[in-house]
């Protein structure tokens, strides 16, 4: 194992609540892969979706505060598991390149950020800094026999000139990582389609239609599970699967993992750290299928 790489870590609010299993498995996997996480001290919410729909300056100030904290901690890169936090941090950095805009943001902050911090997703660091090949070598429990549909969500790679990671229409980072774990990655054409995002609260039919379509395609491609990289996507697909079934008269029963859970599993980390018990759709059957496969392999 090469020497540990150190990053500022921004867990985001959902990591503390709705997506604890993502948060926990991320920490466990990072440790196992030699990624050292330094938590930002006294970080605050990035404003999520509401802030930037109301006021770009205020939204940038929320992220600006976190960026400024990272700077004073001497960190050059922040990573976050949540694509929504990622978007806000990256967009704020991008917008603050405009001096007039930055001035307005600075006025709201105790200590302005100087745009010295790079922001990346955890996925990007695992893909680019560790790489599928290194992961492959660390696999102790290959996910053979597990057919998965990787789902990136619509904002992790877009807009491309801000996010600067992978292909905006056909990203492959998760695909390659999952293949390295030994899983069968099915062709999943709706990788970057919207799941309905926070419309789940205001206009449920948007989510049941859009997320329903995603699960339907995963079924059509014979996936046994979907793999998500976003707390909100995962919630819409997993927690709301019952609502989707009710609205669409469907009978889906598709577990929706976080990619970090599957990496952890293949690396042989204790299942307790990976939070499979927090998933709404019971993944036991699927997990057993892998177990049996790897027994056969052994």
């Amino acid at each position, binding site marked *: 194992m090469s020497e540990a790489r150190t990053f500022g870590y921004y867990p985001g609010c959902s990591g503390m609540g709705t997506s604890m299993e993502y948060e926990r498995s991320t920490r466990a996997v990072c440790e196992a892969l030699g990624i050292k996480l330094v938590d930002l001290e006294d970080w605050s919410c990035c404003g999520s979706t509401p802030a930037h729909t109301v006021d770009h300056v205020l939204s940038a100030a929320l992220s600006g505060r976190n960026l400024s904290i990272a700077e004073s901690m001497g960190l050059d890169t922040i990573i976050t598991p949540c694509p929504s936090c990622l978007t806000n941090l990256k967009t704020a950095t991008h917008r603050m390149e405009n001096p007039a805009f930055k001035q307005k943001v600075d006025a709201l902050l105790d200590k302005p950020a100087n745009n010295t911090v790079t922001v990346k997703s955890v996925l990007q660091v695992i893909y680019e800094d560790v790489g599928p090949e290194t992961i492959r070598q660390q696999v102790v429990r290959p996910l053979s026999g597990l057919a998965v549909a990787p789902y990136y969500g619509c904002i992790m790679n877009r807009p491309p000139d801000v996010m600067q990671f992978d292909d905006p*229409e*056909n990203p492959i980072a998760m695909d390659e990582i999952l293949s390295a774990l030994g899983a069968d990655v099915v062709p999943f*054409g709706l990788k970057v*389609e919207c799941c309905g995002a926070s419309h789940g609260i205001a206009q449920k039919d948007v989510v049941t239609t859009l997320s329903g379509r995603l699960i339907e395609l995963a079924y*059509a*491609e014979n996936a046994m599970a979907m793999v998500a990289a976003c707390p909100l996507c995962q919630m819409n697909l997993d927690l709301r699967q019952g609502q989707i079934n009710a609205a669409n008269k469907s009978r889906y029963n598709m577990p929706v993992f976080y990619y970090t859970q599957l990496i952890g599993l293949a690396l042989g980390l204790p299942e307790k750290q990976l939070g499979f018990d927090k998933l709404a759709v019971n993944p036991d059957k699927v997990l057993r299928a892998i177990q049996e496969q790897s027994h056969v392999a052994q």
Partner: protein
Amino acid sequence: MKIGVFVCHCGSNIAGTVDTAQVAEAARALPGVAFATDTMYACSEPGQEGIIDAVKENELDGVVVASCTPRMHEATFRRTVERAGLNRYMFEMANIREHVSWIGKDMESNTNKAADLVAMAVAKLRENRLLFPKKFDINKRVMIIGGGVAGIQAALDCAEGGLEVVLVEKTTTIGGKMAKLDKTFPTVDCSSCILGPKMVDVAQHPNITLYAAAEVDDVSGYVGNFKVAIRRKQTYVDWNLCTGCGLCMEKCPSKKTPDPFNEFVGTTTAINIPFPQAIPKKASINAETCIMLRKGKCGKCAEVCPTEAIRFDQKEEIAHEEVGAIVAATGYDLFDHSIYTEYGGGRIRDVITSMQYERMLSASGPTGGHVKRPSNGEEPKSVVFIQCVGSRDKSVNRPYCSGFCCMYTAKQTILTKDHIPDSQSYVFYMDIRSPGKNYDEFTRRAMEEYGARYIRGRVAQVYEKGDKLIVRGADTLTGTSIEVEADLVVLAVGAESTRGASALAEKLRISYDTYGFYMESHPKLKPVETNTAGVFLAGCCQGPKDIPSSVGQGSAAASKVLTLFSKDQLESDPQISQVDIKRCIGCGKCISTCPFGAIKEIDFRGQPKAEVIETVCQGCGICTSTCPQGAIQLQHFTDNQILAEVMSLCPPLLEKSFE
């Protein structure tokens, strides 16, 4: 010296924002000016007559016209002063249209600037000397680069006109893109049936020398006397012996060779003749897949070849040709659609290009004319065509319209219905552009008689669902989003300049635009000329074109060559450099700096000196700014002439600094 100044109104083009009368008034006060006036259209017949009369009445020695760009009318006015009995180099032009009236709105500043430009022209004219062109012979042979339909047409027309033609084609056969097409729009006639006979004519014409599998390596010389080095690539077959019998193809064990002629749908053998009607019909070996060339064993082709034509040790050769004119007809390439990752081309097997589809439709193509889904070989029932893939899209740096995709897509929907009567075609389009003769009628037929469903809107995504493809797009006429289930998706890829176009342009010393298409001399009035005398353009190298336009331009280029060659001698431009032998110290700086190799070292009474080779000098003037002695001077743009212009603008400053 008595100078006359004529300030042109150019209608409102100039007079709208420049007080031309006042410019003439100011000119009258300049030293040497004996006559000054403003005139409505200096280039018109009365305008030119006015200049001639004024020269005669006032016994003028030189003329300044303040009007448009010299590119437009310098030649016109030089002829005018010549008719008035002056040397044509006793003429200067001040560009007060492009440099003044078209770029500024302020009447007063414009008028001042125009007066300044006129003052500069007058100052320069006072330093002008009489120059006389020399005559030189023309080599009445022509080289055509590119053997597509435009190049073929140009070659045949020139050859019919009695010229010797050298046709250079980089692939192993002529025919270009047209030879790959199944049918042509709007007549739906067989493409190779109408092109084939022309290709045969090329092969049989006694005046045409064909170099296939060859590229232009180097071009030197000038109009009337170009020297061209042609690189003949190895084909590993002696084409003098090869009879095109094809026995080698039958026996070659390397059958997985990618087949460029069939757009890589299907494969061919390592030794192959691209298609049955190929001209020349000669075999060549693909070195990348030939077992003999890669591993040193096999040689099956050599065993069976009845004429013993196989040459595994063949090397590249350079051939030299001398010609008086060159026609570039290098065609286009197809846009690389894999940039649009959302369409899945290159990843999803049943997403193919229009040209691949064309090969599939062709009876002599890799599927024998049967339309098949690449994934499972089944006949598709629902075919979706996506137009403007790499056309009219700024985001992929292709903002221009490729011009022919609307039409070939309509043709392909018609052919699809012919091949598979129970099929349904869908076309996603932005606008239908069908301005040619019988073109709009043709697209309507595709819709009305053949039932192709046209949907206006771009496609957002193509993805697989089971063994079907889902095409998601917008229908901007109904304002809804739409999904179509497809068995096959055909991307109507646009045209882009051919790879290597810019490198060839630099060899030919012609200009090209940001997209690599060659620039015509004037977009309206000189569509086949370039700014380099003796080099002409035909077909898609100048911009995307359909077959009729390419053929038309091929003929036009040929007629330009024939016109050029209708004289036996051309006049050389005297605006070239000259060495003052007394000043030259023989340092050789000019020799190493001249980009055209137009200066050589000579021995003058035991001293090395520079000498300009008149016919090679392009008059660029780089040597004159290099020479530490000021010994080499570009005629008509000497240091004194340029300094005179500068002095006329800012006399006090210069006088101080130079004394």
